[in-house]
């Protein structure tokens, strides 16, 4: 086989993997739906078409896709150097909380939106990044497995949200639940029709991730360490620095996601926000990323596809009373299959 043919067969193989993944996805869900005694055909149609049948369905899909995109990046960037950031949710929560703290504190100053919004996003970036950096640091310095540390940080962040949302300075006195007062108008992002304006930030983030990973020295070093740690160190790349930077970037992206949820969707801090379809975005981010084997360039498409499934799953529950967990659980099975196929396929090429 010539080299060129080999390259084509590589692309073809990837298409086959994703094709199999989608077929498997629908297959597994169908089996569950059938076992539970629902009409498979109706269920699949609802699952795949709800997003595109109404403008409400589509805007719901976008509203899920944006935080999912950031949560997926949060896992993907550290995963490029083979470490697991399960703390995307915690980083979103922390980023969102700090955004509200700063937003409510500066609110009385009456700064214009043009200053407030970038400032609040910056708060999300820095606080999310620093929160994740804790895990990177614990790995680099104390060899603590990031799976453990990031999950612990999730629980810590969850309590931190409640602390802020119930504190005298920020809480909404009329609410029984931990919820803060509303942010001032100039802190909030608007909508294009029903599409949240944060979609602009999402597109900027997509371009940013592409640029950092593909165009900068930093992205090159992260990619290199992930592919071959020994070779990277031999040729002068510092491992500790790379892992900390990767966690910071992942966390910063999650942090923006948290900020956007607050300033574009809720307008205030709500206990345990950044959840959808019965689970938090961090977990969906992990699944989404694993489906595309942590390829950052494929993340936006995967996040959109997953959101279609999630919106479909919500609709399934509403219209056919199919429990939303069916889709959730199927996703875990699908990821397992995809990982197995990829492992088998990878061996054949070595």
């Amino acid at each position, binding site marked *: 086989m010539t080299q060129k043919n080999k390259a084509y067969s590589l692309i073809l193989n990837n298409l086959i993997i994703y094709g199999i993944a989608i077929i498997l996805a629908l297959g597994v869900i169908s089996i569950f739906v059938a076992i539970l005694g629902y009409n498979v055909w109706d269920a699949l149609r609802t699952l795949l078409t709800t997003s595109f049948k109404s403008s409400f369905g589509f805007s719901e899909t976008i509203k899920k896709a944006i935080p999912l995109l950031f949560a997926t990046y949060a896992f993907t960037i550290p995963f490029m150097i083979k470490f697991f950031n399960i703390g995307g949710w915690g980083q979103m929560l922390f980023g969102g909380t700090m955004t509200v703290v700063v937003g409510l504190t500066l609110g009385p100053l009456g700064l214009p939106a043009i200053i407030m919004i970038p400032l609040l996003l910056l708060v999300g970036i820095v606080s999310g990044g620093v929160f994740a950096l804790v895990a990177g640091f614990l790995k680099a310095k104390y060899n603590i497995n990031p799976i*453990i540390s990031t999950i612990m940080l999730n629980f810590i962040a969850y309590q931190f949200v409640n602390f802020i949302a119930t504190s005298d300075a920020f809480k909404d006195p009329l609410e029984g639940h931990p919820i803060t007062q509303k942010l001032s108008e100039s802190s909030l992002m608007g909508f294009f029709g029903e599409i949240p304006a944060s979609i602009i930030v999402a597109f900027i983030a997509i371009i940013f991730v592409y640029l950092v990973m593909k165009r900068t020295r930093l992205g090159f070093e992260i990619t290199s360490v992930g592919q071959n740690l020994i070779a990277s160190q031999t040729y002068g790349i510092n491992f500790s620095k790379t892992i900390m930077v990767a966690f910071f970037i992942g966390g910063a992206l999650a942090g923006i996601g948290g900020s956007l949820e607050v300033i574009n969707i809720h307008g205030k801090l709500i206990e345990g926000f950044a959840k959808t379809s019965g689970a938090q975005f961090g977990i969906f981010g992990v699944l989404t990323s694993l489906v595309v084997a942590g390829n950052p360039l494929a993340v936006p498409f995967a996040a959109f596809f997953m959101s279609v499934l999630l919106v479909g799953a919500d609709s399934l529950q509403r219209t056919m009373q199919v429990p939303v967990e069916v889709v959730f659980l199927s996703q875990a099975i699908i990821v397992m299959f995809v990982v197995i196929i990829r492992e088998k396929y990878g061996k054949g090429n070595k």
Partner: protein
Amino acid sequence: MAFITSFIESVLVYTTVYTLASLGILISGRTGIFNVAGEGIMLASASAGFLAAFLSGSWLIGFLAGALMGAFFGLILAFVHETFKVNQFILGICLVIFGSGLSDLLYKLVIGVRLSAPIAPDTLRITIPFLSKVPIISGFLNHDVIVYFMYAATFTAWWFFYRTKIGLETRAIGENPKAADVVGINVSRRRYLATIIGSSLIGIAGAYLTIAITKTYSPDISAGRGFMAVGIAIFASWKPQRAILGGFIFAFIEVMSFQLQIISDKIPYQFFLMLPFISILVIMVVFKKHIEFPASVGKPYSRE
């Protein structure tokens, strides 16, 4: 005195959960399988165990169902890893998600929505004549049968690993699978066994949450304890005798922070709720020098 005794009593309840789960994790870890799926196993077993206990009216059948659900997860983990050499951590995370989905789904399917939540049957209590009346000591002994099971499991695991030949062989696999292989020990078979047995213990810990502690089911009932158990197994350097110590310490922190949250009005209660999660990280940093890993844990093994 009565307060201390009842405090110890409640600590022991959570010690049981933490110890059984971290025992389960360290048993497979000793053969090189790093089971990070503990949270998912606990959730699925909490649900399956509760349902079985509720439907049959028997606590014993409930715990058996919990153990069986755990074994099922262990089988998947061992099979997929040993057959396809898939990364253990990716598998573990998939199983966590699978377990948390499965737990709610099972409950919804079997029970659905009811006005009054179903209650699990009482678990058999064992009191020891005389000793169970002595203050403080009775805190350790005035309990249901699973607490005693936890004592027995810890002792058995210790005895197995340090006083039997098969235990020595099992530890050898975790330290150096090649060394075990060259003296004729079947590495893969041992990994299956350890993962299945370990996961059953995690399953019992999960079932304990619903059948004995809350007596009802609610979503996300393990609330991170499955992950804490992984941390405890690491803190324990994968030794059973230290796992029970770790289990007691973290149960103590959990119960204490719960109690303090009621009495303290200065410090916001959220910081007490954070305490277990912060303390596990702090302890791992502080005890860094005293933490050892089986050398092969998390790594696949093949000969060529």
